[in-house]
């Protein structure tokens, strides 16, 4: 069964003021050996050239949606609502996919029907324009590590629908909270040994105004949900 050749693939790329990097992210999606059926760029209220850069690609498979700034969770949800594919992938606007990312993951999906979520490995790299400045001062994964992040994921639509939308109140930790729900649902995940994405370290990765306490909120909401479920089951 050649699911890889039949399943429609949608890619959701949220962007907020990443004019310097979003073009490279989009190129890496369009250059896939298994090109996606649609790439949905969701602009989260950028005030720089991010939208113009995305629109300049003018490919039939690429759509740009725009919304008032509401955070990465809301932007991913907007993209999900518009996505029509059987398989859903995400890429963050500062990350870069390897050329065979979708092909490898779609093939794995095809071979393993029980798998709901496929991840791969990732490497981190210092963004070239800041390499000299940042080298030696930041810890990053130059060697491949299991990449349980949005940019490495390919998911079945049904799995995404079961997990539900990203928590739009969380400015960070939203993917952790989403994955905790996936885990609690018993969804099956697979991590391929291949490097499928490169994560850019540029020293300005989503500047926090709310601090990392959103991680604690993500954890609290996960604990509360589990307790409610246990109480219900008991």
């Amino acid at each position, binding site marked *: 069964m050649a699911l890889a050749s039949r399943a429609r693939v949608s890619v959701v790329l949220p962007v907020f003021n990443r004019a310097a990097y979003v073009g490279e992210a989009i190129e890496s999606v369009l250059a896939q050996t298994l090109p996606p059926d649609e790439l949905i760029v969701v602009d989260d209220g950028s005030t720089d050239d991010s939208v113009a850069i995305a629109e300049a690609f003018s490919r039939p498979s690429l759509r740009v949606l725009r919304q008032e700034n509401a955070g990465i969770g809301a932007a991913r949800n907007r993209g999900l609502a518009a996505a029509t594919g059987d398989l859903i992938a995400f890429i*963050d606007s500062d990350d870069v996919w390897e050329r065979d990312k979708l092909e490898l993951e779609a093939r794995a999906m095809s071979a393993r029907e029980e798998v709901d979520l496929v991840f791969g490995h990732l490497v*981190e790299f210092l963004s070239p324009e800041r390499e000299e400045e940042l080298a*030696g*001062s*930041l*810890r*990053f994964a130059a060697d491949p*590590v*299991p*990449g*349980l*992040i949005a940019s490495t994921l390919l998911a079945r639509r049904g799995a995404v629908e079961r997990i539900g939308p990203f928590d739009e109140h969380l400015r*960070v*930790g939203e*993917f*952790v909270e989403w*994955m*905790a729900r996936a*885990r609690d649902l018993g969804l099956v995940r697979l991590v391929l040994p291949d490097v499928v994405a490169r*994560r850019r*370290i540029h*020293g*300005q*990765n*989503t*500047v*926090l105004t709310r*601090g*990392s*306490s959103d*991680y*604690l*909120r993500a*954890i*609290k909401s*996960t*604990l509360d949900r589990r307790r409610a479920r246990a109480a219900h089951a008991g």
Partner: protein
Amino acid sequence: MEGDRYCVNAPSVISEVIDGETIVLNFESGHYYSFNPTASEIWTRVCAGSSVAAAAEQVAQRFAVDPATIASEVAAFVGRLEEERLICRVAADAVGAPEAAATACDGTLAAFSSPDFEKFTDMEELLLLDPIHEVADSGWPRKLA
């Protein structure tokens, strides 16, 4: 031990009381914790700069129990916090006067029970990867030690 003082193992460790529950997260390990009310009180006092002995007294007062009976339990719990790398020992003269610690719980406290936490490791892989990417101003990406 009784006179020892500690501080939060920042920036790796963050904590907050949310809806009356103290949640502690260690980005170094990817582990997270939920503290019971007694543990929350100890955490709040110790992290505010109280010595272990002073924290024990404050906790005893708070729960209306005899300080002598809980001192060893409090000390043992502080030892666990250190083992989990949630707190670091500091020189006594390195900390100023203890801050007026806010109480960990609002309203009536639960009855005294042995200080304890639940430790969770299920999101380790996710938590270890996530913050490096996302946080900048408040301590991330991490500086090399």
